[in-house]
C-alpha cells in the first residue's frame, strides 16, 4: 500500500500559496525585515520573517474572526489550498485531520494571560481566549473546511509538523483512513520571540545556516498542509500524485531540554530508520531539506548526523536549509519544510541556503548556494524539537520505493497504568480506588464516604523522584514523571536507564498546555522587559514539555509527542498511541494526560470551554484539581518478546467529532455480564448515547468526584478501568470520554484469565 501526496498548500513569509513560495525560494529571496507585529524592545533581534498579507477577517467565518488567531487563518489558507490542489473536499467521503503546532492563539491571548495572572479576580473572559488552546486550530479548520471525521492535534515542539504527517501515515497504513489532511501552523508571538532571545539562540541579523559565523536562528511563521491518501483512493478518483510519502521515523534523544546530543547519534538513527522504512538506499536520495536552524549546536550536530547516516553517499547529497529564507517556523517547520522538499522533487529544482557564505568546516556538506536544477528520485526532510524530538521523512517519485505490504494491525495491550491523584502515586492495581464513589454521588446507601479531590494534591516531588535530576522540570512535568516511573516499574520496564526504555515512546498532554507557567512568563516580560524573561522556564512553556521532560528523565527513546483535545485530552492521547502501535509505529508508549491545578484554567478557560461543569465543591461533585495518569501500551509482539502478557487488550479505540450516536451505537455488546462503563466526567449527552448503545445495561462509574474535575480525569478513568481489570473485578470495560463536540471510546478486555483468588467486593452499582 503506497501513500500519495496529492495536494500541498503553503502559507509562508515569502508568499501565500505553494507555487509562489517555491518560486521565491528558488529565486533566493529572503523574507526577513524588522518585525511589525509587536514591540521587540529588549530582545537580541528585531528581525523576523513575518506573513504580511494576512487578514484574519478574510479567512474566518463571518462573525467569528475575534475567536480566530493568525495561526488559524494561516492554517485555513494552507489547508484549503492543499484540498483544492488535490481536488478533494470533506463532502466527498470521510476526511480526517491532523494538525501540529506549538503556539496557536498565543499572540492574540498574551495580554489576557498577563492580566489573568495579575488580577485573576477581576479578569473577564474575552472571545479571543477561545483561540488559545492548541486544539483551537483544528476546530477552526473544521468550521470552514469540515466536517472532519477523526481529528487530532499534536505537538513535539519544532518537529510537530513532521510528526503530524507520521500520524496521518499511520492512520492510512492501518486502514483507519483513506484520506487525511495533515500539516501544521504556527504564528509569531511575543512568548517565543522573547524566549528564544532569552536563550541566546537568536541572531540579531538574518540567520546564516551552516555558516562559520552563524550566531543563532531567526524566527518565522507559516503553515503547510498536505492531502495524504492511499494510492487506491487517489486512483479511484483519477487523481495524480505529487509524490509518495515512503518513509518516516521519529525518536527521542532523551538528552537535554534545549541542547541537542552533540554526536548526532539519534538524529542519524532517524535518518537511517526513515530510509530503511522506505526501502531506499542513501544514494537514491538527491536532496535533504535540513532542519538547519543556524544555532551553533544544531548545525554541527546535524552535519555529523547526516554524515553518519549517508556514509559515502553524502558526497552527492544536496543539503539546504529553508530557514535562511523564511526563518524558523517552529511547530510549522516540519510540515512546511517537508512540503518544500516535495515541491523540489516535483519541480526538479533544489532551493538554496541563503545567508550561507563561508561554510563551517564542521558542517562540511554539499551545500546549495544558489537554486540548482536537478532531477530527483527521492528527497528527505528532517526536524528536531526541544527535548530532543527528532523526526525524518522520505518522499519519492511515485513507484520508486518498493510497495510496502499491507500488514494486519498489531494488537495493542495495556501492561501497566499509574496515577498521581488524591490517593498518592498508585500503580496498576491501585487505580481502581477511584471507582469507589464519593458519598452523595453514589446509589443510595452504597458507598463509604470519601472526600472529593483537593484543589492541589499533597504531592511532594522529592518523595517520588530525584529532584536534582529533575530540577529544571516544573510541577506539571514532575507529575508526569512520577506517573511514568510508576507505570514503567509496574510494567517491568524498570529500573530506569535500562536499554529497553529506549524503545518506549510517549503521548500525553494537558488540555491547555502549561498555562500558568505561560501566564507568569508573559506577565514578567511585559512588566519588566524582555531582558528578564527566564531562559530556563521558556522550554517548559511548550505544550509537549511534560512528555519531553519525562523522556529525558526516564530515558525514553521512542516517538515523544503531546496530544491535546480539551476535556478529552487524555483520551486523544490514548487513541493516538493505540493508532501508532496498531500501525507498527514503535513498540510501546506511555499514554495519558497531566493537568496542574491552575487559576487560569479554573477561572477562565474551563468555564469557557465547558460551561456546564460545576466549579464549586458545594455541588457535591468534586472540584478542579490536578493529576496525571499514564497507561503503558505495548504492541503484542513487543510484549511477547519480553515474556509479558499484559493486563488488558484495547479491543476497540474510537474517535469522533460532532455528537453522532453512531460510534457507540455500533459497538458490539459486552462479551459477558461482568462489564462496566467508566468515564472521567459524566454528562447528559454521554448518558443518552450510552442508553442507545448495546452497553446500556452495564453499570456506570465516574471518577471525577474522586480525582477532581480536571482535564486529566479521563486518564484517571482509563487507569481506574485497567486497575479493575487487573483485580479481576470485570472482564471488559467501556471507557467513554467526551468534550465539546468530540468524543472517544475504548473497550478494554481483561487479558489474563480471571484470577483464582477471591473476587473483589462488588462496587455499588455493579449489581445493576
Amino acid at each position, binding site marked *: 500500500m503506497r501513500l500519495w501526496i496529492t495536494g500541498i498548500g503553503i502559507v509562508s513569509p515569502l508568499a501565500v500559496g505553494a507555487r509562489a513560495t517555491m518560486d521565491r525560494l528558488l529565486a533566493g529571496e529572503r523574507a526577513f525585515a524588522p518585525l511589525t507585529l509587536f514591540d521587540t524592545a529588549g530582545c537580541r533581534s528585531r528581525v523576523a520573517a513575518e506573513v504580511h498579507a494576512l487578514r484574519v477577517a478574510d479567512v474566518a467565518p463571518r462573525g467569528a474572526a475575534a475567536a480566530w488567531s493568525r495561526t488559524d487563518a494561516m492554517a485555513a489558507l494552507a489547508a484549503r489550498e492543499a484540498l483544492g490542489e488535490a481536488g478533494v473536499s470533506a463532502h466527498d467521503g470521510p476526511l480526517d485531520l491532523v494538525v501540529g503546532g506549538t503556539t496557536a492563539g498565543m499572540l492574540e491571548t498574551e495580554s489576557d494571560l498577563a492580566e489573568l495572572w495579575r488580577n485573576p479576580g477581576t479578569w473577564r473572559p474575552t472571545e479571543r481566549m477561545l483561540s488559545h488552546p492548541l486544539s483551537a486550530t483544528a476546530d477552526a479548520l473544521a468550521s470552514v473546511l469540515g466536517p472532519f471525521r477523526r481529528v487530532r492535534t499534536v505537538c513535539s515542539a519544532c518537529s510537530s509538523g513532521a510528526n503530524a504527517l507520521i500520524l496521518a501515515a499511520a492512520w492510512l497504513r492501518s486502514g483507519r483512513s483513506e484520506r487525511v489532511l495533515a500539516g501544521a501552523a504556527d504564528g509569531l508571538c511575543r512568548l517565543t520571540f522573547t524566549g528564544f532571545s532569552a536563550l541566546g539562540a537568536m541572531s540579531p541579523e538574518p540567520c546564516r545556516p551552516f555558516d562559520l559565523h552563524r550566531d543563532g536562528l531567526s524566527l518565522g511563521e507559516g503553515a503547510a498542509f498536505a492531502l495524504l491518501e492511499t494510492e487506491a483512493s487517489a486512483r479511484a478518483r483519477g487523481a495524480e500524485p505529487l509524490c509518495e510519502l515512503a518513509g518516516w521515523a521519529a525518536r527521542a534523544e532523551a538528552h537535554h531540554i534545549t541542547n541537542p546530543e552533540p554526536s548526532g547519534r539519534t538524529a542519524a538513527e532517524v535518518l537511517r530508520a526513515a530510509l530503511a522504512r522506505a526501502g531506499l538506499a542513501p544514494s537514491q536520495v538527491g536532496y535533504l531539506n535540513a532542519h538547519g536552524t543556524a544555532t551553533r549546536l544544531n548545525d554541527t550536530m546535524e552535519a555529523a548526523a547526516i554524515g553518519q547516516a549517508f556514509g559515502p553517499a553524502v558526497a552527492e547529497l544536496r543539503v539546504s536549509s529553508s530557514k535562511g529564507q523564511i526563518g524558523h517556523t517552529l511547530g510549522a517547520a516540519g510540515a512546511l519544510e517537508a512540503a518544500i522538499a516535495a515541491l523540489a522533487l516535483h519541480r526538479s529544482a533544489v532551493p538554496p541556503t541563503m545567508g550561507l557564505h563561508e561554510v563551517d568546516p564542521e558542517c562540511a556538506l554539499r551545500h546549495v548556494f544558489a537554486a540548482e536544477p536537478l532531477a530527483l528520485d527521492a528527497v528527505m526532510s528532517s526536524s528536531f524539537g526541544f527535548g530532543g524530538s527528532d523526526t525524518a521523512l522520505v518522499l519519492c517519485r511515485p513507484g520508486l520505493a518498493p510497495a510496502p505490504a499491507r500488514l494486519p494491525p498489531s494488537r495493542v495491550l495495556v501492561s501497566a497504568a499509574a496515577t498521581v491523584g488524591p490517593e498518592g502515586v498508585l500503580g496498576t492495581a491501585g487505580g481502581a480506588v477511584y471507582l469507589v464513589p464519593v458519598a452523595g454521588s453514589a446509589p443510595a446507601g452504597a458507598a463509604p464516604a470519601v472526600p472529593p479531590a483537593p484543589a492541589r494534591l499533597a504531592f511532594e516531588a522529592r518523595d517520588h523522584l530525584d*529532584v536534582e535530576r529533575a530540577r529544571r522540570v516544573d510541577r506539571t512535568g514532575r507529575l508526569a514523571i512520577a506517573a511514568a516511573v510508576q507505570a514503567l516499574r509496574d510494567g517491568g520496564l524498570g529500573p530506569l536507564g535500562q536499554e529497553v526504555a529506549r524503545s518506549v515512546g510517549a503521548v500525553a498532554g494537558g488540555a491547555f498546555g502549561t498555562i500558568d507557567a505561560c501566564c507568569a512568563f508573559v506577565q514578567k516580560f511585559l512588566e519588566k522587559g524582555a*531582558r528578564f524573561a527566564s531562559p*530556563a522556564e521558556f522550554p517548559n512553556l511548550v505544550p509537549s514539555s511534560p512528555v519531553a521532560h519525562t523522556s529525558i528523565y526516564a530515558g525514553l527513546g521512542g516517538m515523544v509527542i503531546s496530544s491535546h483535545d480539551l476535556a478529552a485530552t487524555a483520551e486523544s492521547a490514548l487513541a493516538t498511541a493505540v493508532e501508532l502501535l496498531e500501525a507498527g509505529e514503535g513498540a510501546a508508549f506511555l499514554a495519558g494526560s497531566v493537568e496542574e491545578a491552575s487559576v487560569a484554567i479554573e477561572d477562565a478557560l474551563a468555564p469557557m470551554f465547558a460551561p456546564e461543569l460545576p466549579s464549586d465543591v458545594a455541588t457535591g461533585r468534586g472540584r478542579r484539581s490536578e493529576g496525571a495518569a499514564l497507561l503503558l501500551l505495548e504492541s503484542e509482539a513487543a510484549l511477547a518478546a519480553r515474556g509479558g502478557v499484559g493486563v488488558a487488550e484495547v479491543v476497540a479505540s474510537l474517535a469522533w467529532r460532532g455528537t453522532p450516536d453512531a460510534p457507540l451505537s455500533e459497538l458490539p455488546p459486552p462479551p459477558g455480564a461482568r462489564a462496566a462503563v467508566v468515564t472521567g466526567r459524566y454528562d447528559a449527552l454521554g448518558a443518552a448515547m450510552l442508553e442507545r448503545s448495546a452497553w446500556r445495561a452495564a453499570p456506570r462509574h465516574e471518577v471525577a468526584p474522586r480525582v477532581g474535575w480536571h482535564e486529566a480525569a479521563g486518564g484517571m478513568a482509563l487507569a481506574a478501568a485497567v486497575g479493575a481489570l487487573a483485580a479481576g473485578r470485570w472482564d471488559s470495560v467501556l471507557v467513554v470520554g467526551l468534550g465539546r463536540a468530540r468524543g472517544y471510546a475504548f473497550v478494554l478486555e481483561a487479558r489474563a484469565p480471571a484470577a483464582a483468588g477471591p473476587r473483589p467486593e462488588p462496587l455499588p452499582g455493579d449489581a445493576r
Partner: protein
Amino acid sequence: MQALREQLKELIVKELNLEGKSPGDIDDDAPLFGAGLGLDSLDALQLAMAVEERFGVPIPEGEAARAVFASVNALAAHVAAARAAAPGG
C-alpha cells in the same frame, strides 16, 4: 563582600532549583560550571538574567562570561566592581 557572596549563593540555589543543596554547600572558590556544581549553559543564561535582575549588573556574553562565572568569588568580584563603577555607586 561576604554578604554579597551569601546573596549570590542564595540566588544560585533558588534560580537554578538546586533543591538538594543549601547556600552553605557552595564553595567560594569551586567552579560553578562543568565539574563543580554540574551546571550547564542553560543555567549560565538563567543565572546571568537573575544577577542582572537582582543586582542591576549585566554579565558579559561569550568568553568573558566564563571568567565571571569561574566561581562565587569571581562573580561577587564582578558584581562589586560594576556597582562601584556605577554612577553614584
